[in-house]
């Protein structure tokens, strides 16, 4: 009898324990499929996934792919419909408008509004607006980047040149330092047709130009302001750029900068480990970072959200999927990923915390801090992004080659307007 009592007590205790844990882990036993990109953010989060699984009882099946491959795979699975994807990484600027139009994103508005602890308002405004399409919150902003100026501290010092704060100063300094006879060049940036468009954007914005008027959907590729930005960018590359610049993407630009052959380089802040990490770069000690130089309209650089984390609209496990996202992008994890793993995230509280910026080089962090809140896009935000980039890049290529870029701009503007007419809501 005594034994039986003991057994009963044990059962009671056990069942209460079990019921408590069941309350704690409402998603216990669920499995979610998470499709990520090959990215330093993924490398930072992946080792912590077992922690999340232990915490929630959710089993995470994750996989990761190269940027374009990820897009190809997701698009195929989504078009086929009823895909087994729950959470996926996405590029709001590149495919956001398109995927939103296809209804592939689950609107996160309800989840973020209901979750006070998560504090969605903590994300910078530009990052939140970047992932919101037609009122739908398509993704949680993951990593951001801004266009900044990289320069050779030693070269500037030797020649008694101050760090340029305006584009005109940059032009003058590049001219002074340019010495092609000795294979040293004043300036480098992307010269490849399509890739250059994003880095051209800050030049155009700083002259007061833009791709198109977002209210009236009028193309503005041949306005005096936009043309002035294009002229500055292409003249820098044409007059002071290294040979073969038309074939340069960021990897080639980094290469020639690391070969100590260039004084100035404008590109994304996210590329900094390639230049400032002593195990990867020979110029780590002598490379400086500065805020993008100002034009007549001020220093208007892009401050974009390169990647976001989304829930697939047809996911069968939306609650468990949100549990994963709120864990991965919550305050605690964000502080870890930015503070320890040096990833550039979008949470204001993390940027304000000294722990959050301890891994960043000081001048880089200052350059980035000075850019936050600028334009949230670095390319036209339309569904036909690829075609538009080709069109715009073509104007710059013509200018660098010394062709009639004014005519090219007029022609591109007409074609771009046709695209916009199709996109008009």
């Amino acid at each position: 009898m005594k034994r039986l009592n003991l057994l009963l007590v044990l059962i009671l205790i056990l069942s209460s324990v079990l019921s408590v844990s069941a309350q704690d882990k409402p998603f216990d036993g669920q499995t979610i499929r998470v499709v990520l990109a090959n990215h330093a953010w993924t490398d930072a989060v992946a080792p912590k996934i077992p922690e999340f699984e232990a915490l929630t009882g959710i089993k995470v099946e994750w996989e990761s792919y190269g940027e374009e491959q990820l897009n190809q795979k997701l698009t195929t699975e989504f078009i086929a419909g009823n895909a087994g994807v729950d959470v996926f990484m996405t590029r709001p600027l590149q495919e956001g408008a398109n995927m939103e139009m296809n209804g592939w994103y689950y609107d996160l508005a309800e989840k973020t509004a209901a979750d006070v602890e998560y504090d969605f308002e903590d994300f910078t405004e530009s990052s939140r607006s970047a992932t919101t399409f037609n009122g739908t919150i398509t993704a949680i902003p993951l990593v951001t980047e801004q266009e900044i100026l990289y320069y050779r501290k030693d070269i500037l010092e030797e020649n008694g040149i101050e760090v340029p704060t305006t584009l005109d100063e940059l032009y003058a300094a590049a001219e002074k330092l340019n010495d092609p006879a000795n294979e040293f060049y004043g300036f480098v940036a992307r010269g490849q047709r399509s890739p250059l468009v994003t880095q051209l954007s800050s030049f155009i914005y700083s002259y007061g130009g833009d791709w198109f008027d977002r209210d009236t959907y009028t193309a503005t590729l041949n306005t005096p302001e936009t043309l002035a930005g294009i002229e500055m960018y292409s003249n820098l590359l044409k007059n002071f750029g290294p040979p073969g610049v038309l074939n340069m993407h960021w990897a080639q630009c980094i290469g020639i900068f690391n070969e100590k052959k260039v004084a100035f380089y404008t590109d994304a802040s996210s590329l900094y480990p390639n230049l400032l990490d002593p195990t990867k770069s020979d110029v780590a000690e002598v490379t400086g970072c500065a805020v993008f130089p100002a034009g007549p309209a001020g220093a208007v650089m892009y401050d974009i959200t390169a990647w976001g984390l989304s829930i697939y609209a047809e996911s069968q496990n939306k609650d468990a999927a949100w549990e994963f996202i709120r864990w991965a992008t919550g305050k605690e994890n964000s502080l870890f990923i930015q503070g320890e793993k040096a990833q550039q995230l979008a949470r204001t509280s993390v940027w304000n915390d000294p722990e959050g910026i301890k891994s960043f080089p000081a001048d880089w962090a200052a350059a980035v801090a000075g850019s936050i809140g600028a334009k949230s896009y670095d390319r036209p935000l339309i569904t036909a992004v690829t075609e538009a980039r080709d069109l715009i890049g073509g104007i710059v290529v013509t200018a660098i080659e010394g062709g009639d870029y004014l005519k090219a701009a007029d022609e591109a503007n007409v074609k771009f307007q046709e695209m916009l007419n199709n996109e008009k809501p």
Partner: protein
Amino acid sequence: MAAKKTSMYRTQRRIFSVLYFVAIFILLVIFLSPFLWMVYCSFKTPIELSKLPVNWLKGLTMDNYQKVFVQQNFFKFIKNSVIVAAGSTFFGLLIGLPASYSIARHGQKKLSMLILTSRIVPGITFLLPLYIMFRELKMVDTYTSLILAHMLTGLPFIVWLMTPFFESLPKELGEAAVVDGASSLRTFVSIVLPLSVPGIVTATILSFTFSWNNFMFSIVLATNRTRTVPVAIYNFISYASIDWGGLMAAATVITLPILVLAVITQRYVIRGMTAGAVKG
């Protein structure tokens, strides 16, 4: 007079043979240098890779290979690729050889055109239907689905390579066998196939290589379990950073099996070619 002529011929021949070797050497340099550069870079540290002029002996390391095999576990991806490539080639031959023999013997031109259309239509057209089909059959991320998809490119190729080969074999051989009482199957297996080894070897190498390099079907139809090497190599390319050393090491590693296969089977191909030459 005669002696002078002979010596002239000799000089001429010597000049030709020198030119011949120079031409071979130039060709070798053109074709081999990117390959050798890849192998060399796979032993360099990231910082030394970007330096010019090249310091040939500085910054050599095995780290890149450690990344390939330990961090990324490329053994698994290679295993997957071998299974899929061998599987699709084996079944491609199993179906393709009898098919092309039949086409060759009975002049089934329409049939062979039909098979060819699956090569003419771009592979991406099949991607979505295949994906939907395999998903409904719960076969995504299985070897079977990959092998079947890769056969789509391998099989027509085998048929089109082997049909002319079988056509070139003298019909009389088969007829003689039939007179001696052999069945068509027996004739095919015991007479035709052994004579066709060089063709079969060529078809095998090429079909294997097609499958080995196939990216499109592998990216969509495979996920973690059956990921093949062309997809896995992208693990070294990440947003805003490319691990060139690791990439070169991985590229070297995945080129190796094909290279070994080619070297091993090469003598069969050459034997086949010379056999044909002697016959005249």
